[in-house]
Each structure stands twice: as structure tokens, then as C-alpha cells.
């Protein structure tokens, strides 16, 4: 079975459509959304609706910090994230808000754990930036494979039988076998707001037979996604960063 792993879509319809099309063309039969479906982008309603349809058909989705923030009543701040969140709340219908609020923090599936941030205390939304973070996260779960997002920069950590950690910056399109005698933590790149310098949408496929994880990059219509952000009156930097992938 080929699983498509999609993290940090951030209401970017163009990027999500491109990744779904790419994954389907490769024969993906299961879709896993690793949190942060909304905020920053101009299509929160469409993206949430699409994921709702797919979850109804068997897809997996976990809650991200931005998904959680939709239902939180906070004093409004001036940051672009908060401004965009204010706008996002208005766009979403009751069904979508309900769906986001009810998303689980983690899903376990065979030897796999799906979670948005580090596995320790998922609702603390801790980042996995480096080996020490990965070590803590791996220690918090008995599952052999952890797939998460949140960082917006792809990375792959592996832990040997004697608990040594290896950090690796994956190459798009090059399959890495997640050797069965090791434990692995895969940080997915972001579908809708990449921050590693490459504006192409980032996701991954995992083949449960060969145990091969392949990080993928999909060029998409950045100009349209950015134009919609501007048209919605969202902060300019949210549009600009899509073109640079920063």
C-alpha cells in the first residue's frame, strides 16, 4: 500500500490539489493529513471540505495547532498569523469548525504514529528541529515509525538499537528504506507553505511493502495562490513567502 503523507496544507488549495494529483498518479491509496489544514492561505473552507470528504472515505487526519486555534477565543494580536486566523474563522462554516475541533491529536496505524508536532505532549506543539528533539519524541511512543509536520522543513531521523540518532536532510525523489531494525521519525515538509527555500509543494509517499519513504516536491500555481491571499486582504508577507519558499 502506498500512503500519501501531507502536512501543513495551510489553506493552499492550489498546492494541495497538485500534491493530491501527484500522489494519485503514483497509486497512493491512503491519505494522511498531518495537521494545520488552515490559516495563512486563502482557501480554508475548500481545503477543510476536501479533507472532510476524504476522511469520510477512509483518510486519516490529525489536529494541528492552527486547526486548534480556530476554536480558541483569544485576545486578537497583530501578528500576521493572528490576523489571518481572525479572517479564517469567518470563512469556515459550522461543519468545518466542528470537524477541525474534533480532529484527534494522534492516530496510530499498525507500526505508525501520525501526529502534527513532537509526540511527547502533542498539544504542546513542540517542534522537532534537531536530533535531541527527535530523541525525546521517539522516547514518547512505542510505535516504530513517527510521521509529523509542524516544522515546514523536511527532515528524517533514525534511531539505532543502541539509541544513537542519525539526522538526515532528504533528497526529493530518492526513496529511503526505513530499515525495520531501526526506529524512524519523519518530519514532513509543508504542502502549502514550504520554508526550506524551495517554493514547490512538499509531501511524501510511504510504501508499506518496501518500507520506502520518498519525499516529493510538486511545482504548483504559486501565482494564483498568492493572488488569492492578496485579494482576501491577508497580510502581504503571507503571499510573498510562497514565491520564495521561506
Amino acid at each position, binding site marked *: 500500500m502506498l500512503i500519501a503523507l501531507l502536512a501543513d496544507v495551510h489553506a493552499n488549495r492550489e498546492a494541495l490539489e497538485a500534491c493530491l494529483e501527484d500522489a494519485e498518479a503514483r497509486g497512493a491509496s491512503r491519505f494522511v493529513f498531518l495537521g494545520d489544514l488552515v490559516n495563512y492561505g486563502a482557501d480554508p473552507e475548500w481545503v477543510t471540505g476536501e479533507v472532510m470528504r476524504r476522511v469520510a472515505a477512509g483518510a486519516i487526519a490529525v489536529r494541528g495547532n492552527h486547526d486548534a486555534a480556530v476554536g480558541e477565543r483569544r485576545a486578537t494580536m497583530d501578528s500576521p498569523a493572528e490576523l489571518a486566523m481572525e479572517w479564517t474563522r469567518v470563512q469556515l462554516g459550522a461543519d468545518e469548525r466542528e470537524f477541525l475541533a474534533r480532529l484527534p491529536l494522534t492516530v496510530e496505524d499498525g507500526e505508525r504514529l501520525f501526529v502534527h508536532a513532537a509526540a511527547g505532549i502533542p498539544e504542546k506543539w513542540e517542534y522537532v528541529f534537531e536530533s535531541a528533539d527527535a530523541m525525546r519524541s521517539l522516547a514518547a511512543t512505542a510505535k516504530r515509525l513517527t510521521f509529523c509536520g509542524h516544522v515546514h522543513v523536511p527532515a528524517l531521523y533514525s534511531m539505532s538499537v543502541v539509541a544513537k540518532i542519525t539526522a538526515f536532510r532528504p*533528497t526529493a525523489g530518492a526513496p529511503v*528504506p526505513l530499515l525495520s*531494525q531501526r526506529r524512524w521519525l519523519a518530519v514532513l515538509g509543508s504542502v502549502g507553505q514550504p520554508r526550506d527555500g524551495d517554493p514547490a509543494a512538499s509531501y511524501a509517499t510511504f510504501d508499506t511493502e518496501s518500507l520506502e519513504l520518498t519525499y516529493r516536491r510538486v511545482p504548483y500555481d504559486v501565482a494564483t495562490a498568492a493572488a488569492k491571499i492578496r485579494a482576501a486582504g491577508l497580510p502581504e508577507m503571507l503571499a510573498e513567502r510562497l514565491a520564495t519558499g521561506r
Partner: protein
Amino acid sequence: MNTSARIAEGATVDGFLVGKVIHRGGMSVIREVTHPDIAEPILMKLPSVREGDDPAAIVGFEMEQMILPRLSGPHVPRFVALGDFSADPYIVMERVQGRWLLPMLEELPLPGDEVAAIGARVATALHEIHRQHVVHLDVKPSNVFLRQSGEAVLIDYGLAHHDQLPDLMDEEFRVPYGTAPYMSPEQILGNRRDARSDLFSLGVLLYFFSTGVRPFGDPKGKRRLHRRLWRDPVPPRKLRADYPPWLQEVVLRCLEVDPARRHPTAAQLAFDLTNPDEVKRTTRSERLRQDPWSAVLRRRFHPDADSRRRAPETSVAEQTSAAPIVAVAVDLSESSEALLITLRDTVGRMLEVVPGARFACLNVLKYHRLALDFTLDAEGKSKHLKRLAELRSWARPLEMAEHRITFHVLESPDPAAAILDYARTNDVDHIVMGARTDSALKKILGSVSAEVVAGAPCTVTVVRAR
């Protein structure tokens, strides 16, 4: 973790009938196996994971598990199957038939031309794996076989580095792993990402095979291992008076401490080893003694010594493609002056864009099959030399450094076949040639460039004058 007792002679594991132990090394045990569906000889490699064994054995085995299935071609053992670590860890692969270099140690030293021929094959095999993103990092006689068909096969990827896979060796061990006599200086310093490390190890092998002596001995302990960072080896010509200067040039270049002073790619090393006459000789070829102690001490305490610790910023495959071999086919007899100039301008632009490229200028001296015996005597020879001079004269305006350009007159009744054959034999990355402009001639003779484009194993650029 324990090597399963299930894998013993006579047992059947996942369809493989387990046979005798062929080899027992520090890191692994190798058994012969058979499978009803596989006709060729195959073997099973098992990690050596008993109490007290080297922990690197497990990691090395994991690396080989990841790398071997991703390699292809005649220069690696064909991958057959993997056993899972959770059940029985093993790798089944082709049992390479042919000549193993290890037993040849009994016959050393070998004649220079024989060593060069072996070296060229190993260099070609290295280029192939480098192109596939892998640095071997353990090139030594016991890891090389020569197939009957000619290709060298590199075995054992337990210490190898793959550009696109996590480097488990790099992260897990502070001490660099390798085979002491063959390890490159940068590998000793912990850099595992430079393809030119394999050229150093091959240089050690060439030196050893041609002199019977290891250039840096078999050092024990870190301090002795580090000696090669500043102490140059005894020049082979001091050990053997009849040692060919060109071979000393090539071998000592491989053994340069700074990777930037070695050949930029294994293909370029293979090129030198197959074209002795074209090797550009420097003072390396003349050396008859080691550097004086003053120079050695200067190197020993030179603050730059640590710069080699830095890994190259480009990937292995990028390092390889940054220094291509370009063959320029120059048709001096039928090309117009304008075409010859355009061709030269094209090469000039490539020179600027790809500073690591090496150019081989070819001209095909055409002879007619029927008249073969009558033209290839004294007259044929003078024609050959005349063409060579014309080629050099054509290239002169490029003002190319001598080590970057070589000239070759090929003799053949079929120019396209000769160019293609040259490209295949020398692992050429790019052919540049002119198009025949005279349409009448083209009609009668066909287009050489079209034939080359159709049959080339590499990129071809066809240049036209406008």
C-alpha cells in the same frame, strides 16, 4: 541481537538453501546459497553480531542493506534479496565470478602496464558508482574482482556513503572507519562525502601492485594513521629503477593529500591509465626521493591542514558531473573554415562554463578497407603525424592548459563508428562535432553526425556554421 542459528548449512531460509561458509571476516560471514529459481551463483552475507564483535558490523550491514539494492550495472554484485533484521538478517547477492585481486598480492610487484590496465578498470567501476551517488570508502584488493568480460566489480558497501541516504556510519561513530593502509587523509579526518577519497585508495592499490610495497605501510593507532597527512610516500621510481615515469605521475597524483590536486573524477583517472602517452607529466613523474624534512615539518604544522576536514558542498554525483570528459570530433578534411571556427568557439564557451571539463580532440583518418595494406606503412604514419599537428594547430587559439586537452587521431574506414567506439571506451560524457555542410557529399556519404547522435552513449552537440 544474534545471528540466527536457523541459518546453518543445509537449512532453507526464505527459499534459499544454505551452503558452506566461503569467507569469515571481522564484520560478516559469507555463505554459498542456492535457490531453485536462480541459475547464477549466489551468496548470502550475514552480519557478524556475536558478543564482543565490532558494533560497526551492524551499522555496516544496515548501510549495505540500503545501498546495494540501489546500485545497478556490471560493476556491482547483482542484488538478489534482503532478509529482515527482525527475522534473519541477510543479504543475498550474485557471487561474482572472475579474478579476485587479493590472491594477486602473492605475485607483486606486477609490470606497470598490467597494473595500469587493472587500475583503469577499477577507476571505471568507481566512476559508475560515483555516478550512482555512492563513495565506496573501502577500495582495496579484497574488495575488487575482475569479471571475465573485463569489468571490475566493487564489493562490500558496508563503509560506503550514499548521497541520498542517511549516513549511519557518519553519525554513530566518532572514530573514522576504513582500512588503515588504504584510507584517504580526508577520510581519516572524518569526511565521508568526497568521491576523490576512492581515487586515493586506488592510488595506494596501484602503488602497492606496481612496487610490492604499501606506500604508507600498515599503520596501527591514530597517530601513525595521521602520518600520511604530511609525510609523502617514497617515489616508486626510487624502489624500481625501471618504473615508468608516466605511471609515477598518475599514482602520485592519486596520493595527493589535498583531494583538489588529485584527478577530479575517476573517469579522468581511467583516461590517464588507458592513454599513457597523453599523461601530462609534472615534477611528480621526476621525483626520486621523498620531500626533505623541512617541507614535511612545514606541512605537519601548517594551519591549513584542517581545511580538509570540510566536506565538499556538492553531492557525489554533482562532483562527478562537474568534471566531464568532452570529446570534440574535428573533421579537418571536409569542414569549411567557418564550421571549424564555430566548433572552436563552442568549445571555448564550454571551457568557461565547465572549468573541470577535460577535452579530447579527435580526428578520424579515414582509410579504405581494400587499400589497407598499402597505405598504412610509412605514408600512413606520416599522414597520422600531419593530422595530429593540424589538430593541435586548430586548438591553439583556445589556449587551453595542457593537462585539460589531449589529441587523438583515430584510424578507421568508418568515422562515426570510430567516434562512438572512442566515446564508449573512454567513458566520454559529451561529444561535440560539426555537421557536414556540403549537401551533395551528405547525400552520397550520409551524415556522420546523425549516426553519432543515434548511437551515442552520451550527450551530443552538433555544431553548424551560420
